[in-house]
């Protein structure tokens, strides 16, 4: 007898907050709504929709650049499951790049 394990998963809709220096690559939006069940999927959706953004966030071998941090709600994903961190509907992903201005 065959039995199937039903994996039910819904693709969550999250909001990705875009920091000022990068808004020029997403048509000046302050946030972008994307679908994705993990942080990695949501970010991939973002850079696929806005390809110019990719090189500012990811290296050529697909790693998140070290001066960019990703937060899920208020937690750094490095302390969660990194890009495998699961998303729920309505989650907020923040891209937090370093800025140095003070003058």
């Amino acid at each position, binding site marked *: 007898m065959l039995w199937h394990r039903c994996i039910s998963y819904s693709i969550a809709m999250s909001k990705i907050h875009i*920091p*000022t*220096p990068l808004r*020029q*690559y997403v048509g000046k939006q*302050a946030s972008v709504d994307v679908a994705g069940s993990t942080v990695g999927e949501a970010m991939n959706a973002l850079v696929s929709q806005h390809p*110019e953004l990719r090189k*500012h966030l990811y290296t050529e071998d697909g790693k998140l*650049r*070290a*001066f960019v*941090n990703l*937060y899920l709600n*208020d*937690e*750094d994903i490095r*302390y969660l499951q990194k890009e495998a961190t699961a998303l729920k509907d309505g989650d907020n992903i*923040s891209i*937090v*790049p*370093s*800025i*140095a*201005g*003070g*003058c």
Partner: protein
Amino acid sequence: MATTTEIPVTLNKDEILRYSRHLIMPEVGMEGQQKLKAARVLCIGTGGLGSPMALYLAAAGVGTLGLVDFDVVDYTNLQRQIIHFTSDVGRKKLDSAADKLKAINPYLNLRTFDTRLSSANALELFREFDIIADGTDNFPTRYLVNDACVLTGKPNVYGSIFRFEGQASVFATEEGPCYRCLYPEPPPPGLVPSCAEGGVLGILPGLVGIMQATEVIKLILGVGEPLIGRLLLIDALGMKFRELKLRKNPDCPVCGTHPTVTKLIDYNEFCGIRGEEKPVSNGVPEIQVEDLKRRLDAKEDLFVLDVREPHEYQICNIGGYLIPLNDLPKRVNELDSSREIVVHCKMGGRSAKAVAFLQQAGFQKVHNLAGGITAWADRVDPKVPKY
């Protein structure tokens, strides 16, 4: 946070009257005001962030304030560096700041350091203070300040700004994270523009600088919840404040359990900057403003491409064809690759990127106008306004 001085500090009658609005609050009181007077705070930079910080710390009665700045007041500073006045243009920022701070509070023990903070002087300097307030404007110095704070055990009250957004936190406390826990590596040079290139809303360093001053005072008094382990994100346009959790990274090379950085390094090298930060030409072919003028006057067939933003074009232009840098990939078909093209921007940085892009797109006759429209205004046509 306790200060390191053991000498009991007293307030005279005049000071008691001056600080009465502090003294009547139990959160400050005589004890708190004495802690403020005994405190020694070092402000790195007397520019956008340093201005409001120094002003409020002096007013609050911080006993010893150190200021580090090697710069001179520039006309473009006046839009936001409120410690400097029109009459101060051309003066050393330290002298300008000292005048105003002593006028606000003659009890202030002001120590000025007319020097560029460097790996050679930072440790010795920081040891003489209790709290460091980072008001600098570039990545190498931010990493230097952070590392020196961790190595000397002084808290780093951090603030940074860009256009209309800011960040604030307190780094380098014993249990808390340091700047490198958040950003182990700096961005490559040229990716994040400075205030001169990207612009900044004048009030923004005021908003963020006051937050830093607030954190300094809270640390001295030992009251409230300091921004240790918290990154405050400020969006001035939306007037929204968000907070992210920061954790101390046990693998942090500076403040972790097995630090690999145990002395100060070459921070320019760390940030990938070689030599002076000038508009980088990146090896693209250049033309000087005098040559462009000469060739235009001789009615040579040159196409001048301006890659600045429309609002910059409205400030001043030399009649170039405007395609903002970020639109260039989409609009490259508007250009004729058989013509000789001279590309310019404000200072030569963006236009260098445009030339590199056009070369990759197969354009062979492109040159970057070295120094941009600023050099044109300086050397060819002084009637062209600079901005």
